[in-house]
């Protein structure tokens, strides 16, 4: 057991910093720093710049187009991206669809879809939750009925992040409901431009909208877009859970926001400084937990229930950071000029430049302990898988 920052890692960090400095537009950087809303172009242009450098899919094998990074390089890249206020990429293609196709897809499917993910030419969303299947995901009912070379898909997906930006959807559908609910689920790759696909934005009370309802009405999806065997979709979904490693539990995001908080904090309220320190110490722990549980492991090791632990603590700390950033604004937490968060607003801000975004983010980040398997579901997973309760 030892700590050593290899020279290679130091040089790599410099390389990442130089790349971001060179390619990230100042206005996008400022928006991320102040918590303003990003447009699809802000995010996708950045993703394409990263793709051009060959860095879009760090957790793919080198033979499939990954950069061949060590786990610590992957961590450094994500941390530096956040610290430099680069937009977070839409994760569904590079982090979810890609690894599933690499594990379960046919050669033809890989040839069809992986290049677009690597180049950020296609943006993906993930069709998991449904109005009546939230925490109990396996009860999902979106139907896919075989009709010759196609499936006819009918049903609704909800809370679908980035569906309004996406070209394709990676969806869990029900192809059979005669047996156990986990059986009879299949994975379909659905072209969002097909007739019968409707995307309706769902407004959140935070007034930040990037999730949607996706409605499928008699959508004809070619059978060639089914991943793995019919009825074995749950295996793919579980594989994703066990291999979801590229997220850093928000360490970089929190560090970036805490750096901002420390800039803002004038030290006149020692109690507040103390709470920033408390959150900083908790984040330091999260960072080391992440390094220990994920980054120090080999690329193909399965990440076990540690992923649940990191999700719980990561989102709790993220929420604490968002709350502190809002509290730091004092009365300036109140003004809410919706257009101030959007593209093209160039009037002077009311109060500090980050004030409007801070409040919106506080409200919006309540989602973090709900999405991706609520924190209560994560506790159920640990209770069962680790503690044997």
């Amino acid at each position: 057991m030892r700590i050593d920052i290899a020279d290679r890692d130091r040089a790599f960090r410099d390389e990442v910093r130089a790349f971001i400095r060179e390619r990230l537009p100042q206005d996008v950087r400022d928006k991320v720093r102040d918590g303003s809303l990003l447009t699809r172009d802000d995010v996708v242009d950045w993703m394409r710049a990263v793709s051009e450098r060959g860095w879009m899919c760090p957790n793919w094998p080198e033979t499939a187009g990954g950069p061949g990074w060590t786990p610590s390089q992957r961590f450094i890249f994500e941390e530096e991206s956040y610290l430099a206020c680069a937009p977070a990429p839409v994760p569904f293609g590079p982090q979810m669809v890609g690894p599933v196709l690499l594990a379960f897809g046919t050669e033809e499917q890989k040839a069809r879809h992986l290049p677009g993910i690597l180049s950020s030419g296609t943006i993906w969303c993930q069709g998991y939750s449904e109005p009546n299947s939230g925490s109990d995901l396996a009860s999902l009912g979106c139907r896919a009925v075989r009709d010759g070379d196609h499936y006819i898909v009918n049903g609704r997906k909800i809370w679908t992040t980035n569906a309004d930006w996406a070209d394709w959807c990676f969806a869990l559908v029900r192809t059979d409901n005669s047996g156990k609910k986990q059986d009879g689920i299949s994975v379909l790759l659905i072209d969002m431009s097909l007739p019968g696909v409707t995307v309706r934005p769902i407004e959140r009370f935070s007034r930040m909208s990037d999730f949607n309802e996706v409605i499928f009405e008699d959508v004809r999806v070619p059978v060639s877009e089914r991943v793995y065997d019919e009825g074995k979709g749950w295996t793919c979904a579980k594989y994703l859970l066990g291999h979801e490693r590229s997220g850093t539990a928000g360490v970089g995001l929190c560090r970036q926001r805490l750096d901002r908080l420390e800039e803002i904090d004038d030290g006149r309220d020692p109690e507040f400084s103390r709470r920033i320190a408390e959150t900083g110490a908790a984040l330091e722990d999260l960072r080391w937990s992440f390094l220990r549980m994920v980054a120090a492991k080999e690329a193909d090791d399965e990440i076990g229930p540690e992923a649940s632990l990191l999700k719980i603590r990561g989102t709790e700390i993220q929420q604490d950071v968002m709350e502190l950033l809002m509290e730091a604004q004092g009365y300036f937490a109140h003004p809410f000029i919706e257009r101030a968060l959007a593209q093209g607003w160039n009037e002077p801000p009311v109060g500090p430049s980050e004030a409007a975004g801070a409040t919106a983010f506080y409200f919006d980040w309540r989602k973090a302990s709900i999405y991706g398997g609520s924190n209560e579901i994560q506790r159920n997973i640990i209770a069962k898988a680790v503690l044997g309760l």
Partner: protein
Amino acid sequence: MDFDYSEDQQLLHESVQRFVRENYSFEARRQLVATEQGWSDAHWAQFAELGWLGIPFPEEHGGLGMSGVETMVVMEAIGNGLVAEPYLSTVVMGGGAVAAAGSDEQKAEILPAVAEGKCKLAFAFAERQARYNLQDVEMRAEAANGGYRLSGMKSVVFGAPTADRFVVSARTAGGSRDADGITLFLVDKEAAGLSVRGYPTADGLRAGELTLDGTPGDVLGEVDGGLPAVEEVVDRAIAAVSAEAVGLMGTLNDMTLEYLKTREQFGQPIGRFQVLQHRMVDMFIAHEEAKSMAMMAAMRIDEEDADARKKAMSAAKVQIGKSARFVGQQSIQLHGGIGMTDEYAAGHYFKRLTMIDRSFGDNDYHLRRYAAL
């Protein structure tokens, strides 16, 4: 970065764990801490024989020249078994002070004796009015006849009743809270004017109050410039008790989980109740978080940049304190009435965890230090 034990670390781990398994049943421990001395000379001799008493010291002074990670391995086992021998006070703190501040001559005289088990040390740094402030020192040292004479009091000196020599912080210049003007001294237990009032602590260990009245002491390190060494030693103690707390929480969580699986109420094991499952998961998370920080502390304690080291140790101590309090309190809660009894181990683990939280700066202290650095 490597989080796996090296081969040598693995062997050390197995050896200390075996010692705990074979010698520290809860009943044996209970009897041991009830004796006058509160710990066992035979165990101490075994520690010496196995080389554990020289782990952090340089090889030329009879030590094994190992890093903070090996100290962590030993301290975690000490926590697992609620081990009562004065390893922290002698090896980590007293020995740490001599290694940090001593002249070559002093190191050559003392460290091999510590490693051989012939000399026990205690580090006397705390004073009644100082709370956790390391530079609040009222103990005076006056130059006299080419040496120094110390007068004043030191409080809650861990391992004091059985120490052969003390490392004492005293003021040689400046006001009682100044950073400058603090000097470390070596004081022999037989020295004139020294009295030690020993007592048991809440966790079953031993400590004492020291009164010095014109007591002769040998300068250890730089005159007037002793504070950095005091801070370093206390940081080493933080890294060590972080690992000890991880061991304590590990055993306590195992015990509690076992209880949830076997205790039946309402016709089923109480571990079937989701409210208790989630509580247990949060205790598991608290332990894992403490582990991350104990490892971080072990890997960074030898860092040369003192401010970076201090900030890291403060972050570790804050998390250890939070985790220890939660795991300790909830393990008693989940055990119900049996958890409140003296004959059940959980309460004793809880007491040691709580006293660790009361040592070397509590959360308020370390959050302030973390924010200031």
